[in-house]
């Protein structure tokens, strides 16, 4: 196996690791906090919000936005590290 294709394998593996971590968080804040655990979390208050309700109608959306920007930052770094960036 050539050096280049081994490097690409490593790049892809790191990409998949990033995806796994980010998608776990994605699942946790929406399906976890917003749906499955909503009732226990609702006994905690965040200002006038019940926490479970806040995750379902506000918090999960904020986290989604952050996740995409973390992904952008992380992939730009990976692209440079493996010399597959576009500029």
């Amino acid at each position, binding site marked *: 196996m050539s050096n280049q294709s081994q490097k690409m394998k490593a790049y892809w593996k790191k990409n998949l690791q990033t995806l796994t971590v980010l998608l776990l968080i*994605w699942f946790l804040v929406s399906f976890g906090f917003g749906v499955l655990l909503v009732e226990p979390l609702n006994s905690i208050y965040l200002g006038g919000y019940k926490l479970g309700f*806040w995750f379902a109608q506000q918090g999960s*959306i904020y986290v989604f936005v952050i996740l995409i920007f973390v992904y952008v930052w992380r992939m730009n770094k990976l692209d440079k590290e493996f010399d597959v960036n576009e500029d």
Partner: protein
Amino acid sequence: MDILTWTYILVGATFALYIGIAIWTRAGSTKEFYVAGGGVSPLANGMATAADWMSAASFISMAGIISFAGYDGSVYLMGWTGGYVLLALLLAPYLRKFGKFTVPDFVGDRYYSKTAKIVAVICALFISFTYVAGQMRGVGIVFSRYLEVPIEWGVVIGMCIVFFYAVLGGMKGITYTQVAQYCVLIFAYMVPAIFISMQLTGNPIPQLGLGGSLADGTPLLEKLDGVLTELGFAEYTSGRKGMTDIFMITLALMVGTAGLPHVIVRFFTVPKVKDARLSAGYALVFIAILYTTAPAVAAFGIYNAINSTSEKNISELPAWISTWQKTDLIQVEDKNGDGKVQYVADPSTNELTIDRDIMVLASPEIAQLPNWVVGLVAAGAMAAALSTAAGLLLVISTSVSRDLFKTFKPEISEKKELRIARIAAAGAVILAGYFGVNPPGFVAQVVAFAFGLAAASFFPVIIMGIFSSRINKEGAISGMIVGLVFTLAYIIFFKFISPEINTAEHWWFGISPEGIGSVGMILNLLVCIVVSKFTPAPPQSVQDMVQEIRIPRGAGAAHDH
């Protein structure tokens, strides 16, 4: 000036702006027509995607749905935003690197099969048509409510505007008008929300106002829970649907969002893979502004509505109630003859019926804002409906000219292809307008299911096409067909054949037809993997292509190879 004059001025001014942009950015080549020449900046594309995505339903109806559904309305909030994470992480960068113009293009190439491509084209056309008919209807309704013209005329005027800039400008014209439309719609949504939040909670930021306290010091949500329980309704902040159902509907909406062809195609318009990722991030920021405000508008709206009507004398109701009574969106009927309004859960004694669309449409009047704000909300609703309609029409025309015509007649010249694309766009506008004027009874219901169908058909096949090089055409075709047929059959059974047993105890595992797309998606995935395992691997050239799209370098502009 009165409301009607302001509405004419603001709607007229925004229309002039859209047409001006369309003339200025008209498309000269197929590349400009399909993907705006591939040179759109990530920020502009993010804004255009947000306008493309947020339809008349998001703008007019979503807050009202949440008003009456409370916590259960979260499925739309999470579902229609969470899909962008999937889109950004799993689809957009790779499809951009693949570098052609449409989703069926990708399916056809990756699965080296015309059959797969045709199945994808049919899915794309079906999803886009059901969706666009709903938008044209939305345009008509806004016209008839605010400009006091018949719905039919409203649809025709809307058709002319969309016709003008979609047919002339193609993707290039649409992109830049959508940027303008986003600005109009978000401004129109935020102004009343900010004022109402100030009036109720003293906090100008609606997202914080929702968690804030009323003048007497009680938190708004706690007060709302109390008021609703007293009237016999369920608590605002707790769910009424089953947890499995909430889970499945949210999943179907998320995955469906990521599989919608008119959203995916927007990521073909940016110059680089890097830009595709970033642009999905910007799109979600712009969408999140509206989607985090909507639950606040929802809670403020229902609180205000109950507060200003419940147990009040009918003769002393606020002015906005009588204004909207004329449109039948609010109905007051003094059943027990005590001269007061009783708003209660029991339909036999309830005296007040409020249409969900009121929460946004009447919000400026409820908050006693100046007349120009009412005109602004009308212009915003029009922007939301027109931008989504235009995006969908483009997918339809591209599917016809490129995915159908060019697949069977690859030798047609670019000029001819462009002409066919324009004729297809024109045809689609007319057909959509027809459905807007004469809506078949099922359109409204089918729009909600477009997501389930997108989830069950496109999403798994695209994902597997990128993340596995072993999935072959046999797997993809059988997966798409199984997913689509299963989902469609479940929906048709409960919605059209036996609607009388469309209740939780008859559903499989308590999953409603709205959420069944998630199961369809999982079936699609399983069939896809199993069938591929027992049939030959894809040719080496396809496996190489899969390796190629995983690496950003060398994306170049979207091309026609």
